[in-house]
């Protein structure tokens, strides 16, 4: 099924599979979407901002060595199959393995990202330093580069007899490290670079963090397609809709509903609240502000679809995160107040997310409406003032801190409870198709949505 998905998506996005992909064709599957079909880790954080893509020249193709052509569980063919050397990219952090990986949904999986260079030619393409740092160790098929900040970049399967670096060598970002090859401790693997990142995380310790979005960002930089900033909220405020370029839906599309002809810009989404410890569906607006300052944040509500009394909103603003419960059903003027927050100018990892694990039982049909955000500037205060998540000015806000349902501490593996949201009424003629059609090219993904928990459909649209 996943192969079919890949074929369809690739066919839609890349006209000529056998031809070398041009930079302008670059597209990538969302983080956490694996060729293996299993649930990867949905994590769009860039863990190493500003890093250099670890292969010297484009194009390059992160994807699976196991589930792609030539892999044991792939669709046949050889590792040099043109489809292995085409967009879109595929995340393979957390691809099924039997070894421990506590950050993976299953608790096991692949630690990093396998990357093919532009062609499958051996010892032809250079791997380069992703950051300035020191080469700390050279094993039989692994080279580790530690940046000044302590991030360990690990490069596997380069041609060890032709390395461009030595132990203890100081390298600059972009310096050549070695040639992409298939060294694997005496038993060759496929020709690719396994690249991973290890960071010391406060309260966690040394851990292999997701690499995928750091690679996406650095590749966009390499090919001259830096990510466009999100459309900015004006100095006096403004609205953001679900059609905003920086709006993303997450989770299983089966449980999202699209309503056309209603809401801001004539469409809206809703999903049902449920009681699970972890969210099943959520949405996010990444934010950009022309000016820093305090803004009142409200969400658009229409009684027919805004029924949750405890919708969970997380607001990331000026280096802080606040969680707020909002009674969508209580709004009387079409807007439910989330709170007043100090935002910094620019993007700065600021966002508003809404989650479905409110604790409201699925059979209550408590719809969570996702449509628009409104920002109203409050005075001209500088953004160094802490958030005022309080009752003013609207009485329909139930602000609180740390009020989300207690997370299951066994990583992000939800309890295997019954998915009560399946009682969702059939309000859609072809629900997945409608939902996905609204986000354009991702429509082709409907064939496998049931297995693709954690879709970020917008990811496909990034160019």
């Amino acid at each position, binding site marked *: 099924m996943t192969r079919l998905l890949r074929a369809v998506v690739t066919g839609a996005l890349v006209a000529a599979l056998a031809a070398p992909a041009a930079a302008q064709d670059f597209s990538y599957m969302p983080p956490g979407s694996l060729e*293996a079909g*299993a*649930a990867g*880790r949905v994590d769009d954080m860039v863990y190493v901002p500003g890093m250099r893509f670890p292969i010297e020249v484009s194009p390059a193709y992160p994807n699976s060595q*196991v589930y792609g052509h030539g*892999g044991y*569980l792939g669709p046949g063919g050889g590792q040099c199959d043109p489809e292995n050397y085409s967009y879109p990219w595929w995340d393979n952090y957390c691809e*099924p*393995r*039997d*070894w*421990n*990986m*506590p950050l993976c*949904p*299953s608790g*096991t999986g692949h630690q990093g990202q396998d990357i093919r260079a532009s062609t499958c030619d051996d010892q032809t393409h250079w791997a380069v330093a992703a950051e300035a740092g*020191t*080469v*700390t*160790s050279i094993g*039989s*098929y*692994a080279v*580790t580069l*530690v940046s*000044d*900040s*302590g991030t*360990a970049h690990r490069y*596997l399967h380069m041609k060890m007899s032709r390395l461009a670096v030595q*132990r203890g060598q100081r390298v600059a970002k972009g310096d050549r490290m070695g040639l992409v090859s298939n060294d*694997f*401790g*005496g*038993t060759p*693997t496929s020709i690719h670079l*396994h690249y*991973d990142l*290890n960071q*010391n*995380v*406060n*309260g966690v*310790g*040394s851990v*292999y*963090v997701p690499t995928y979005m750091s690679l996406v960002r650095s590749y966009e930089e390499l090919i001259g397609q830096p990510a466009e900033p999100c459309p900015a909220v004006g100095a006096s405020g403004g609205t953001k809709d679900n059609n905003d370029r920086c709006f993303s839906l997450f*989770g299983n599309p089966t449980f999202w509903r699209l309503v056309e002809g209603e809401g801001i810009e004539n469409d809206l989404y809703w999903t049902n609240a449920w009681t699970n410890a972890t*969210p*099943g569906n959520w949405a996010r607006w990444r934010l950009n502000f022309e000016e820093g300052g305090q803004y009142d944040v409200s969400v658009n509500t229409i009684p027919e679809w805004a029924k949750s009394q405890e919708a969970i909103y997380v607001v990331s603003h000026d280096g*802080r*995160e606040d*969680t707020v419960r909002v009674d969508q059903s209580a709004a009387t003027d079409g807007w439910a107040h989330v709170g007043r927050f100090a935002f910094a100018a620019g993007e700065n990892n600021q966002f508003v997310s809404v989650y479905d694990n409110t604790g409201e039982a699925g059979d209550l049909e408590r719809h969570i409406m996702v449509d628009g955000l409104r920002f109203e500037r409050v005075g001209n205060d500088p953004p160094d003032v802490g958030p005022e998540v309080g009752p003013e000015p609207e009485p329909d806000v139930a602000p609180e801190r740390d009020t*989300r349902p207690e*997370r299951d*501490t066994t990583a*992000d593996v*939800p309890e295997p409870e019954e998915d009560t949201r399946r009682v969702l009424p059939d309000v859609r003629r072809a629900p997945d198709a409608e939902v996905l059609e609204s986000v354009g090219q991702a429509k082709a993904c409907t064939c496998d949505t049931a297995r693709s*928990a954690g879709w970020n459909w917008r990811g496909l649209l990034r160019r």
Partner: protein
Amino acid sequence: MKWMVWLCCAACVGCSAAEEGPQTGAPEAAVTRAQGQPLAGPAVDRLPEAGAARTPELDVAPEVAAQLAPVRIPMLLPRTAAHRGDLFVTQGPTWASAAMRGDGLHLSILARTRAEVRPHLAAQMPACEGECIRTSSSDAIFSVAFFRYGVAYLLNVECDRAAADPRCSDESFALGVYDDLAFAGGGQ
């Protein structure tokens, strides 16, 4: 073709996990917390004081001691001399590393005192106690992460013959190396 066999094994073992995987992935943690605020868990706050006398638990060769002496972070090395051959020590502003090779092995120990603040990761990690040992692996390199002296350590064990050396077939050998580690110098 041997690599295909290896990939076969690696992938096959993971098949059941793929089928039994969760239906939803969890997003980032949504806890209310100012970024940069200390989190619960083993804190990186107990570096030995500068100048404090620490007695190495290992009797290392003078050349090894000389490499370790300028290191600002307490360094751990295996008691087993064969595992700490060809020692090479490097350090950065907030980290130090020891790389060794011998007996068909490549060992590396990375010690870090600077921690990234990632609340969403901290909220998702299973609870741990003591030195908070966590094992992991990829491509036959086995890792053991743990805390000691308030420092976050990462031990990596790599075999010269990745597919043929049973020491790199599961985590037991790497955990044995972890048990074998002792304070060897640095951190003064």
